[in-house]
């Protein structure tokens, strides 16, 4: 989004104002979701690597963009986005999906307890194992989390297509973000519904994550069911038009 603005203001480098972009205002329609920021506000740059680059290494474009950012108005960074080394976008997204009713404190505490439970289980296994097996046991909860969710991602999805008055489930490739979303959604749904009344979420989630890490468990089974349905309906693939 910054690129067209850069092209527009290159000719007027002495002007501090940015060119206001035309907003589509349709008569009779008011926007329901809006923000207090006007169109001239830029998104904040949070990554430290951007600022650590030495000045000599920057290209013309980047130098111009740096100068531009000094005069442009910038939105405030959201509260959960930090430049800390401990921040993980996947963990943040998963925490937000677990959150209910805006209770971010509870969701975050559940997430940290889950990671701690995963770590404790793996350490217990590590101390009980012999020295040959110790090399194979993964103890970092973050790698376990990432690998487990990667193992849960479906490769192909089913899309309902209306043809001849009937809806057919047609196999279609999914975008990367859709696959990540499905993996997280299935994991959370599984941990919420199929557990004993008295087990807590961190306990159940850590158990499911470890099972998914080893390509076992109900979430991976659900992924395989999706693949099997797609394989069964592969004749309908020509119903797609994209």
């Amino acid at each position, binding site marked *: 989004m910054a690129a067209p603005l850069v092209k527009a203001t290159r000719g007027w480098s002495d002007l501090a104002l940015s060119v206001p972009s035309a907003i589509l205002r349709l008569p009779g329609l008011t926007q329901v979701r809006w923000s207090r920021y006007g169109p001239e506000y830029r998104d904040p740059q949070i990554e430290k690597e951007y600022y650590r680059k030495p000045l000599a290494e920057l290209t013309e474009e980047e130098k111009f963009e740096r100068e531009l950012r000094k005069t442009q108005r910038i939105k405030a960074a959201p509260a959960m986005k930090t430049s800390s080394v401990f921040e993980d976008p996947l963990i943040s997204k998963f925490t937000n999906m677990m959150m209910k009713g805006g209770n971010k404190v509870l969701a975050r505490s559940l997430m940290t307890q889950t990671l701690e439970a995963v770590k404790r289980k793996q350490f217990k296994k590590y101390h009980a194992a012999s020295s040959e097996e110790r090399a194979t046991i993964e103890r970092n909860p973050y790698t376990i989390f990432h690998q487990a969710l990667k193992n849960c991602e479906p*490769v192909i999805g089913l899309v309902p297509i209306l043809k001849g008055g009937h809806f057919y489930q047609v*196999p279609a*490739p999914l975008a990367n973000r859709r696959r990540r979303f499905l993996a997280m959604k299935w994991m959370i749904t599984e941990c919420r519904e199929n557990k004993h009344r008295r087990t807590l979420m961190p306990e159940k989630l850590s158990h499911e994550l470890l099972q998914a890490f080893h*390509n076992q468990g109900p979430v991976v089974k659900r992924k*395989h069911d999706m*693949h099997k349905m797609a*394989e069964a309906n592969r004749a309908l693939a020509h119903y*797609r*038009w*994209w």
Partner: protein
Amino acid sequence: MATPSLRGRLARLGNPRKPILKPNKPLILANRVGERRRERGEATCITEMSVMMACWKQNEFRDEACRKEIQDFFDCASKAEEARKMRSIQGESGSLPPKKLNMLLQRFPNKPHVS
């Protein structure tokens, strides 16, 4: 080629003949154009998908046995996605797309009155 004329076609007091045309809406140009008929696309990546499914059938749906086929399928899907984006960004080669035409007509509508 001249446009066909409208003289004596409608039912009016001054017109002695039977009406030739009986329009159900007033014959005034609307401030919008019709949508372009979308062209028939075909499904992409069918061969990669069938190869991957054959591999799955052989290896009981294990993903680690079919890494290469899955990677090919993903590459094909991303290429198809990019091609679709390029086509949509390029837009209509001849005239403006109907959405832009409608926007322009909304801003500069047809005058049904004289002044």
